[in-house]
């Protein structure tokens, strides 16, 4: 009996760790983070790779989207197709950094947050899910997802 989904949940646990770096400050203006978190532009191709990688971006655990190579996609959240048409870049950035700022009841994790979390596994203590530059890459990629 072959298991296609070998240990979905355990995969998450051993994911690549974002390096521990102090979080960079950011400013929220009218439901957006207008400035790049890293101070540099994002790389959309790298961003796409992060989004489809179940151990780094984790996005497809919950979302689906235009990723024909990713066989296992989630349906806990809306499809990412057209995300770049629905939101500005600054809003996409805030969505990834701290989704709760837009919807306090959301289940989407805050990707750039280390405080106010309970019982974080030792390997992840003090680390955000993604680094500032990884988030910029993801945002650059999402911005390319236009509704046809």
């Amino acid at each position, binding site marked *: 009996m072959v*298991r296609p989904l070998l240990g979905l949940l355990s995969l998450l646990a051993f994911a690549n760790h974002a390096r521990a770096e102090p979080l960079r400050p950011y400013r929220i203006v009218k439901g957006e983070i207008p400035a790049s978190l890293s101070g540099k532009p994002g790389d959309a191709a790298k961003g796409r790779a992060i989004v489809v990688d179940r151990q780094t971006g984790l996005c497809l655990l919950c979302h689906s989207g235009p990723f024909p190579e990713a066989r296992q996609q989630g*349906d806990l959240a809306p499809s990412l197709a057209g995300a770049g048409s629905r939101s500005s870049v600054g809003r996409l950035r805030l969505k990834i950094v701290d989704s709760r700022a837009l919807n306090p009841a959301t289940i989407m994790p805050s990707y750039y947050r280390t405080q106010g979390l*309970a019982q974080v596994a030792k390997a992840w203590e003090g680390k955000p899910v993604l680094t500032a530059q990884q988030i910029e890459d993801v945002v650059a990629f999402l911005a390319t997802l236009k509704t046809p």
Partner: protein
Amino acid sequence: MKRALVIAALGFSLAAGLAVAASDPRRSGFDFMSRETQAMQKDDFSNPGMLWVQDGADLFKARTGTSGKACADCHAEPSMKGVAARYPAFNAKTSRPIDLQGRINQCRLDRQGAPELPLEGHDLLALTAYVAQQSRGLPVSPATDPRLEPFRRQGEALYKKKLGQLNFSCADCHDANAGRRLAGAPIPEAHPTGYPLYRLEWQALGSLQKRMRGCMSGVRAEPYGYGAPEFVAIELYLMSRASGMPMETPGVRP
């Protein structure tokens, strides 16, 4: 040959046992599985968990410890029927709830004069599976001792507490999103009816606590240790949530 006979003797028909009433909206993890995996659970000859049950039957009869007594010297086999369906129970000695594995270990210490078996080790899982298999098909019937109530409430609070770097509670997945797909895998309702059970992913039998530790590391939380009071409290809550659903031990899961 001998094994086949033992397994046949232990098993009783599940044909009518698994389904809850049609009007009951609750679904066992069994209902979310493929037909092949369901068939594997239902047939004692293909259910790998039965190998542990058989080892448990042997251990139940084995004399051990300074007392030289076997479990079977104190408990006739039918007396184990229904026990797993009402655990965790209140343990007067510690004034806390105790789960089935803890109870078996307590008998070893106090009655057999034998050392406790390691949690999640083969022998304790086998004994637990053997005892719990005798409740198969019976409805989960949580113990009614009022002294359990604060612990059950603690379990419920822990079930609803957000944990880990990804900041999820058990309820976020198993109440709010049960039936949806997490990266393609259906999220079950977290009913504890099949434990200890055989997971294809583990290639082994494992306890409910092992399952919960997996969910906790999935959200990048530091899991509670085996036997932790937090786990026993969550077990109490899950059993009350599954009250009336049929026991399935040994279950099979993907």
